[in-house]
């Protein structure tokens, strides 16, 4: 078995294509892609922030204070054209045609309305489909400043002293006292993200060599030669399995290491306080625990992709099966992200979901040893079942000579 393992590893290390996917891709390409996405996002939000909106106010005479505020606001520019608009419909048309960015419709004078005990209902007409949009918030902040001033003055006119006004407006306030420490809070968010990143890598690291070791050997005609040696089928399967497992773990470790390096490089330029606080409280023991939790998943996925690869007739057929499989891995991870999903005796038995939940618990610092033991047992049982089917398929003529 060791000879098979050794030879497979040598062959794997000499295969540039697979090495590229296992080492180069996670090490360089992912940070580049992530960096590129971050760059584009920050550019987009910067652009949105710096954008100056052309505006048009219907009935400026009802609130000259507001009109002046907007006029001197650095993000707004008054519409300089000849056209006149006097309804919400006309403003909508103008926004659609791109004549203005935002239209503000003031139906009446708020000072008069408040005296009559009525609200003045203003309408802001703009295109709200963009993800990053500052228009509404900017208009609202100017309007609410004015609204607050009007209210303060009106209450004062009614004889309410300015010091009593907050209590009168909100007699009861409530605030949170959270028993969850910072780590638990960050852990809930970050801990859910980590399996999302790690588990597909485990699968990727396993599937590339697995295709080569099963279907690839069949296609090249070496499998028949291999089956004519006095090595038992179980030994052959185990040798191949450990190769796939090693590659899967190596792929994950390399990615995590590269991620750690890139995060530390990035944090020396920008301060990522949230990330730092969360990771500072995670001890080395927790890292070991996370890693050891990946082992059962890696073993399970390795045996699964190996079984698929042995079953497949050709390289291409094996690749066709891998596509839906990677989607199948995302589903249980998504399940673990559902609100209020927790690690218990039932969820500990659902493959992949169990490990995703357990990793979250580890990052949160609230891990239960019993549940982890259960995960190990469940995953080991599943992995050995899949390995057994590998051995069985390796003995079946209809699979080997399909």
């Amino acid at each position, binding site marked *: 078995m060791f*000879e*098979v393992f050794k*030879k497979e590893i*040598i*062959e794997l290390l*000499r*295969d540039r294509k697979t090495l590229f996917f296992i080492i180069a891709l996670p090490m360089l390409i992912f940070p580049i892609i992530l960096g590129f996405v971050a760059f584009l996002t920050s550019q987009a939000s910067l652009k949105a922030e710096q954008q100056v909106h052309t505006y048009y106010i219907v009935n400026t005479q009802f609130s000259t204070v507001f009109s002046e505020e907007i006029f001197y606001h650095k993000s707004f520019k008054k519409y300089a054209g000849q056209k006149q608009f006097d309804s919400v419909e006309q403003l909508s048309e103008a926004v659609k045609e791109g004549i203005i960015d935002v239209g503000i419709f003031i139906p009446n004078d708020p000072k008069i309305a408040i005296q009559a005990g009525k609200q003045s209902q203003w309408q802001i007409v703009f295109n709200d489909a963009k993800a990053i949009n500052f228009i509404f918030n900017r208009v609202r902040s100017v309007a609410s400043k004015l609204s607050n001033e009007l209210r303060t003055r009106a209450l004062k006119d009614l004889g309410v002293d300015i010091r009593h006004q907050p209590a009168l407006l909100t007699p009861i306030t409530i605030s949170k006292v959270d028993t969850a420490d910072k780590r638990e809070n960050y852990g809930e968010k970050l801990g859910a993200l980590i399996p999302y990143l790690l588990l597909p890598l485990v699968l990727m690291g396993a599937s590339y060599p697995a295709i080569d070791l099963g279907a690839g050997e069949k296609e*090249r*005609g*070496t499998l*028949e*030669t*291999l*089956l*004519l*040696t*006095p*090595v*038992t089928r179980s030994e052959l399967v185990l040798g191949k399995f450990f190769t796939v497992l090693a590659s899967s773990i190596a792929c994950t470790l390399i990615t995590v290491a590269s991620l750690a390096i890139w995060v530390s490089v990035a944090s020396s330029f920008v301060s990522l306080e949230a990330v730092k606080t969360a990771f500072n409280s995670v001890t080395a023991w927790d890292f070991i625990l996370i890693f050891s939790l990946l082992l059962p998943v890696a073993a399970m996925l390795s045996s699964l992709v190996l079984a698929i690869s042995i079953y497949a007739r050709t390289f291409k057929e094996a690749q066709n099966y891998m596509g839906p499989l990677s989607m199948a891995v995302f589903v249980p991870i998504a399940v673990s992200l559902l609100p209020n999903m927790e690690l218990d005796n039932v969820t500990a038995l659902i493959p992949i979901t169990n490990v995703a939940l357990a990793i979250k618990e580890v990052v949160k610092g609230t891990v239960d040893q019993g549940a982890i033991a259960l995960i190990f047992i469940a995953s080991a049982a599943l992995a050995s079942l899949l390995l057994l089917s590998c051995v069985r398929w390796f003995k079946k*003529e*209809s699979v*080997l*000579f399909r």
Partner: protein
Amino acid sequence: MIAVDKLAKRFKLTKEHKKNKERHDSREYDGYFHSVKNVSFTCNHGEVLGLLGPNGAGKTTTLRMLSTALKPDHGSILIEDDNIVKQPLLGRKAIGFLSGSTGLYGRLTAKENVEYFGKLHGLKGHALKAKCDELFSMLDMTTFLDKRAEHLSTGMKQKTNIARAVVHNPKVVILDEPTTGLDIMTTQTVISFIRSLKAQGIPVIFSTHHLDEVALLCDKIAVIDQGLSCFDGTVTDFMKQGGSTELNQAFLNLLSGNKHV
């Protein structure tokens, strides 16, 4: 010595096969394709047996059963006194197998390929090195030992394949069309290799379509047609029964005679 007795092997027909009833093969019935129905022959020490038959006669299936890759439905294969149908592991140790479809590991060098199979057969250390060196010089492989198999020429590959097939000192050597697609020089290498095995007293069974090779090498001939043995005997008997001193004509006569019966 290897004795094959009443071998039979059938394969389940696929659904597509069952649908396509236009091309009916007489060996397709009961939902199975009866590839090999009854094949028997023997090959003694120091003998070379040529396995002949038209394409699709069941030669490769027969040889795959001999190599233990396929398990026969009926019959026995005796090597010395061991029935390798019942003990395939003994068979794998006793047989050296080479076919057109048995490939090499492209990313391993020629040397590593041969050594790997030696190790899988339990050879180690000095014994492995001595055996490999012997094969490398015998097959004149020293110039390309450290080249990756994927960069070797067809002839070099076939030499490596031969070394791989016999690295474990097999008691019987089985070759499935070993000269198909090879140039004259490499064919000659294969022929001299078969002769050296014969000189060592190792029985060799090889399937071929080249009857000149049969004339050159074989002591015995076995003919398979439609999954049935239709001849097993010496080359002289073959010519006598085929009614011609030309092997090609004798072969054709034998097959047509078989169809008349």
